[in-house]
């Protein structure tokens, strides 16, 4: 029991401190606006209080329940029961609530004394403090906050026990059994195994994809396009990092080469070449691939960290070249290139955000096709072998340099395609479109999604590029949420959102038949 209380107090302190920081950047208010979007209006109308305050309370309550559940968690098998969970949760809730209540009380008193807190903490305006005090006076408001968080913590402790208790386990089993009876049903299995069923399903999927851009508005199509370009880049980098195991931190360089190729060949300035978009598209792709090979020949002899640093440098070189005064007359300099040519179809412009979504979908389809085909080929196996053990792979007759170059060139070509589409869609490209963050973002897409997995890359691109877009209202807090998500992911799903079956197996389940320990025995027999 004492241990449980100590644990609760410790957890409560952690949550309380984190809460103080969140309050000081008025995060509960921001979270409230997100919650407002999620919860339907008629539910909000059930509660006779200010909806803004309700949303904030929901957020604080959820955090409080989490704190309680964590404080009342199972410390050892024997003494885990309703009471210990409740006490642990209450202890966590108490500390958490004390800190929150004290903070709110201080903020309230300072505001009452007409201290301008927002001179020091820009987010804490008097209106925000009023929301924190739940529209009451300082004393009542902070007391309410205290009681609310305390109750939430105690509730969290009990809920935590309930969810690891037996009735929840039996519920889970029932659900699993129901699901299995559906998916394992031979009749259903047979129906879905038929080729016709598969074709019908894929046709349905494709029709759905073709249909989406038509109903989505301009803004959503723009967002889908951005996500799509990141899917394309992610698929390319997935071949380099996920398959061949080459850590490329300068991937943006190939993106930039694609973008600048289409920019310089189709824009009126600085060269006035005004070529057709469709002519420049393959040129951009080929130039990017060629750059991949040219860069690859000297640097791919390096392994691991060294390769990462050299490619990082290469990415920066391309960006700095584009910015440099020396090349301004050639690249347009820091101001970039505007009025980039856009695609046409049968003489008509084919360049609205909706049209671009289709072009990007085709690009993604090509990238997926190439990835799938290569993965199950001699080359895909060679990549995988190289990633696992380069020395042995070479002894198996794999020319490591040429296979690395292949991966690099294909990845670069896809990045080039992404660059061409990106520049043409925005009708602008400049050095700042091609900074280091792009490389890092694409790498994050691959890692967050699950290395080597195609659906993973798509999921990753949506999570990393789509979510921030959806969270646009909370602009200033995007990086915070993003960082928290990344940390949470690395703890709970280190293999990625949608990993390949094999990778998740590696990280989560130990094969019952572990390799027997093979201690080399050295015989000292007399010859």
């Amino acid at each position, binding site marked *: 029991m004492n241990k449980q209380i100590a644990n609760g107090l410790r957890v409560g302190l952690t949550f309380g401190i984190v809460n103080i920081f969140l309050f000081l950047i008025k995060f509960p208010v921001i979270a409230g606006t997100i919650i407002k979007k999620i919860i339907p209006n008629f539910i909000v109308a059930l509660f006779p209080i200010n909806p803004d305050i309700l949303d904030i309370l929901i957020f604080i309550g959820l955090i409080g329940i989490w704190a309680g559940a964590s404080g009342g968690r199972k410390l050892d098998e024997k003494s885990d029961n309703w009471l210990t969970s409740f006490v642990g949760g209450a202890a966590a809730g108490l500390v958490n609530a004390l800190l929150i209540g004290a903070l709110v009380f201080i903020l309230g008193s300072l505001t009452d004394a007409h201290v301008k807190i927002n001179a020091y903490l820009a987010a804490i305006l008097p209106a925000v403090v009023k929301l924190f005090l739940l529209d009451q006076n300082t004393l009542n408001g902070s007391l309410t906050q205290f009681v609310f968080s305390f109750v939430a913590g105690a509730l969290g402790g009990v809920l935590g026990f309930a969810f690891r208790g037996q009735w929840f386990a039996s519920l889970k089993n029932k659900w699993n059994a129901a699901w299995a009876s559906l998916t394992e049903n031979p009749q259903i299995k047979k129906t879905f195994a038929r080729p016709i069923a598969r074709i019908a399903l894929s046709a349905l999927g494709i029709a759905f994809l073709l249909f989406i851009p038509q109903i989505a508005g301009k803004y959503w199509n723009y967002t889908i396009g951005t996500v799509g370009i990141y899917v394309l880049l992610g698929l390319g980098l997935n071949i380099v990092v996920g398959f061949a195991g080459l850590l490329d931190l300068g991937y943006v360089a190939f993106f930039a080469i694609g973008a600048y190729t289409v920019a310089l060949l189709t824009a009126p300035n600085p060269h006035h070449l005004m070529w057709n978009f469709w002519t420049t598209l393959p040129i951009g792709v080929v130039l990017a691939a060629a750059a991949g090979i040219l860069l690859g020949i000297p640097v791919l002899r390096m392994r691991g960290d060294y390769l990462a640093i050299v490619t990082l440098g290469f990415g920066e070189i391309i960006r700095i070249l584009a910015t440099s005064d020396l090349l301004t007359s050639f690249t347009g300099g820091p101001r970039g290139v505007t009025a980039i040519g856009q695609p046409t179809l049968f003489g008509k412009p084919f360049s609205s955000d909706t049209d671009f979504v289709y072009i990007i979908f085709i690009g993604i389809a090509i990238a997926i*096709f*190439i990835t799938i*085909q*290569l993965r*199950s*080929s*001699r*080359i*895909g*196996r*060679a990549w*995988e*072998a190289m990633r*696992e*053990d380069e*020395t*042995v*792979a*070479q*002894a*198996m*007759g*794999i*020319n*490591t340099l040429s296979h690395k170059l*292949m991966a690099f060139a294909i990845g670069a070509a896809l990045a080039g395609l992404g660059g061409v589409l990106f520049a043409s869609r925005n009708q602008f490209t400049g050095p700042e479109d091609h900074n280091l963050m792009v490389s890092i973002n694409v790498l994050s897409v691959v890692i967050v999604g699950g290395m080597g997995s195609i659906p993973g890359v798509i999921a990753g691109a949506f999570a990393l590029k789509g979510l921030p877009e959806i969270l646009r209202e909370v602009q200033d807090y995007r990086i915070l949420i993003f960082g928290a998500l990344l940390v949470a992911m690395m703890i709970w799903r280190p293999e990625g959102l949608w990993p390949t079956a*094999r*990778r998740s*197996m*590696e990280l989560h389940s130990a*094969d019952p*038949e*572990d*390799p*027997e*320990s*093979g*201690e*080399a*025995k*050295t*015989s*000292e*027999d*007399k*010859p």
Partner: protein
Amino acid sequence: MTIAIETLGLTKIFGGLVAVNNVDLTIPDKAIFSVIGPNGAGKTTFYNCITGFYVPDQGSVTFYGQPIMGLSPDQIMYRGIARTYQNIRLFPSMTAIENILVGAHSRLTTNLIDAIVHTPRFREEEARALDEAKRLLKFVGLAGQGDRVARNLPYGAQRRLEIARALASKPKLLLLDEPTAGMNPNETTEMIHFIRNLRDELGITILLIEHDMRMVMGVSDRIAVLDYGSKIAEGSPAEIQHNPRVIEAYLGRNASEAQN
């Protein structure tokens, strides 16, 4: 007599240490030839010099009359030399069958375009390679285990899988580095039969590094003994067993005097 591999004056120096010192070795075609010696005698370094992992400082290596020294490991593999490793080095998270298919890499010819388009040539070659891989899996006694991830196979199975991977390249010469390390006597006996089979059925020349003397004496046609990087003896198993220099190398001078 055809000579499979011949080294002349092979020397490899690491800093001040002469790991392989002036080794002359002639291994006839279809022989089972063992290299033995105390720990640190330079046996594995000798392998690494032959397979291109190290470039020897002096000497020459010829393989069926062709000089192969200075070629990269993948080029040497293409000439027909395959090897296994003292500490098993499979591709741990690939399946057994994929490991073997990687071994067959040097025998497959499809290029990037074939692979992307999946041309008929590609399909046919992949199907043939898969059949071959399954046959090899059966040959090493792992039938039906093809879809298991290599690291999850039992130790002995991993050893045999490594040999199957080496065999997939259809080598003329197979270098085995302590294939029975960590095996019990039964498994060792199996391995002796297995290695004989390789030579008798597939006609592969075998070079063997081994510590288990029962294995060495039971399977080898000829044995060479390395000590401190130098070859101190060569001969049939019976000759080696009574060679005083060999006994001295293994057990010290007193032991060799006591024997005589």
